[in-house]
């Protein structure tokens, strides 16, 4: 039995799901349904206002102001700096990391949420990791978000994602804490925007992947329930028992009913997927054998990540992979994208 939980209402809506079927709705507190559950899957949309202030560190060369960190992004408060360093995609160091500049910024920024993005980190993350070490040493307890974990090529977009993720971390931590208090001892997963689940730990570290987890889960839940959750409809059919599940009487009417049905769909939709992890990397390989070896390493990384995202170890498997040679760069540079999925324990 799995619990699906939709947050966002004054009182969370929970559903009980057994063998993929929605068997009960619990409208006044998920804790009432936790007995016998082996896991809880949470659907929630994270609010983008207000965002927590972020200290953004870009490790790269100079650039026009319009291309600077957080330029044109007034919705994310905070401070930003560019420090020398980073790598080319070929792996060559652009410049040694300016560790002193990092220390000065950390000591003077007055913030505890850091977003670190280094040029070339999808190929070589060393400078991001080195900056993280400096931050951790200078400011124990700081929350540090590194761009290489997404691995998406494109410095500005990766940085934007990293900053937004860092800005959502305090909110994610609060939600995860509250959910854990509500459901003590139960493994908790959060629904991703792009489908799939992540563990509460991963949700706290990289919440951007779950930013619209509630909306995405509601769409999935509605589709699975054959569209019977329209505001004027009766109790959902198909996977439900005759007459609707216990708890359906809380549906109410009017706008409240629509919101309630959305929450039921979101809670149910969150239970319909398993943990997912994606890894993107730029790899260099001379010849087919080395490429195969590097791809195996990335597959292993994806499998490890999906297990750390909450998948039962035996269930983790690679479900999608794409490898493309990169044009106009030295021989043997490839862009690899691997997706691994698994099942909740």
């Amino acid at each position, binding site marked *: 039995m799995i619990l699906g939980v939709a947050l966002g209402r004054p009182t969370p809506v929970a559903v009980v799901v057994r063998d993929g079927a929605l068997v009960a709705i619990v409208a006044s507190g998920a804790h009432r349904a936790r007995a016998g559950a082996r896991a809880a899957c949470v659907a929630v949309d994270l609010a983008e206002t207000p965002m927590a202030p972020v200290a953004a560190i870009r490790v790269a060369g100079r650039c*026009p102001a319009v*291309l600077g960190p957080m330029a044109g992004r007034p919705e994310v408060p905070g401070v930003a700096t560019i420090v020398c360093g980073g790598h*080319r995609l070929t792996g060559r160091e652009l410049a040694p990391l300016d560790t002193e500049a990092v220390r000065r910024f950390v000591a003077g920024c007055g913030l505890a949420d850091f977003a670190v993005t280094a040029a070339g980190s999808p190929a070589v993350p060393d400078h991001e990791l080195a900056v993280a070490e400096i931050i951790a040493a200078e400011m124990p307890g700081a929350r540090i978000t590194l761009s290489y974990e997404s691995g998406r090529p494109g410095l500005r*977009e990766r940085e934007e994602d990293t900053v937004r993720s860092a800005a959502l971390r305090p909110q994610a931590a609060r939600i995860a804490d509250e959910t854990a208090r509500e459901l003590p001892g139960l493994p908790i997963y959060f629904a991703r925007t792009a489908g799939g689940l992540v563990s509460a730990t991963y949700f706290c570290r990289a919440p951007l992947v779950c930013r619209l987890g509630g909306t995405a889960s509601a769409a999935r839940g509605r589709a699975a329930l054959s569209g019977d959750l329209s505001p004027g409809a009766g109790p959902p059919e198909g996977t439900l028992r005759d007459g609707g599940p216990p708890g359906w009487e809380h549906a109410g009417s009017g706008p409240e009913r629509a919101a309630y049905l959305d929450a039921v769909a979101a809670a149910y939709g969150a239970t319909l997927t398993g943990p997912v992890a994606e890894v993107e990397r730029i790899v260099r390989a001379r010849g087919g054998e080395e490429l195969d070896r590097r791809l195996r390493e990335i597959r292993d990384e994806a499998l490890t990540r999906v297990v750390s995202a909450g998948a039962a170890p035996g269930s983790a498997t690679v479900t999608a992979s*794409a490898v493309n040679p990169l*044009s*106009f760069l030295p021989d043997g540079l490839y862009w690899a994208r691997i997706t691994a999925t698994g099942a909740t324990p």
Partner: protein
Amino acid sequence: MSRRIGLAELPAYAAGSRLFATGATESSFRLTLDWARSLAGQGVELVAAGELAPGTRCAAVTLAGSMIALSEQLPGGDEPAGAVRTLERGLGEPVGAVVALNLAAENALIPLIAAATLDVPLVDGDGTGRVFPLVEQTTFTLAGIGAAPLALAGASGELVLLDTVPGRVEELLRPLVLAVGGWAVAACYPMSARDLAGAQVAGTVSRLLEAGRPESARPSAVPFGMRTLCEGRIMAVEGSPRRDTGPSLPSLPSSIVVEESQGLRRLVRLEAYNEIVLALADGAVVATTPDQICMVSTRDGAVVDVDRAVPGMDVEVIVVKAAPVWHTERGLELGGPRAFGLVL
């Protein structure tokens, strides 16, 4: 009659530049567009080559190298001006106008940035009428104008002036671009406005501005016609780990297999070296370079690059007819299948 490309015209210019652009990445295009927007306030004068004084020194400006490299190692900001100034030092005279080598995505925006920075006009034309992967695959070359001297500006402040004989530029340029980080701005093909008028594919900037308007249809961007080869789903993308095409081509060969979704349900195989250079349908040749072969996503209408093609994508394979000069004997020699190592 001259006109200006400013903030008001930039959206149409940018949209038009992407209609058939291969080799662009979303990230590098966005950053180049943001960069252009920050400089386009006063507007750049757009002139026909014939409107310039015949002796005006002109230069082609282009990005050379990898767009993914550009998206990771951002420009310092002075590369376009740096490349042109370095070329001027080599020539011993100022450049009075710039022209695009081609007008595909970032390569349309970088000459605009150069013109805005240097306060010189942008010529209404370009050097290919489409896009080719090599700097010397241009109508300028076909007209007997050399790419060298060529100046290169890299993102770490490198400035390189390269002078050599025709036919050797690519071989020397490619390792230089890699040495400066994988991308650079090049200023090349120094020529008089008189020579430019006779060597360019004229009017392509105006056409692009027109085609980029929201109400315009995609075919309005192509002066010489286009046809749809097939609609289908990408079934396989195969990259070769081995180079077998000589040192002057800038990437590994790769193949894309598209299964036609309707009609004869043919298997269409696309052979690519950065650009798609050959299309085979059930083994029969149905299109080759110098015509431009590109995949367009049926989901959002965006051109799908060889770098980004993945199995499962639904695409329309389109063939854009190249300018007539590319179908001459000399044009085929420079931009036809044999130029990519294909003997058909």
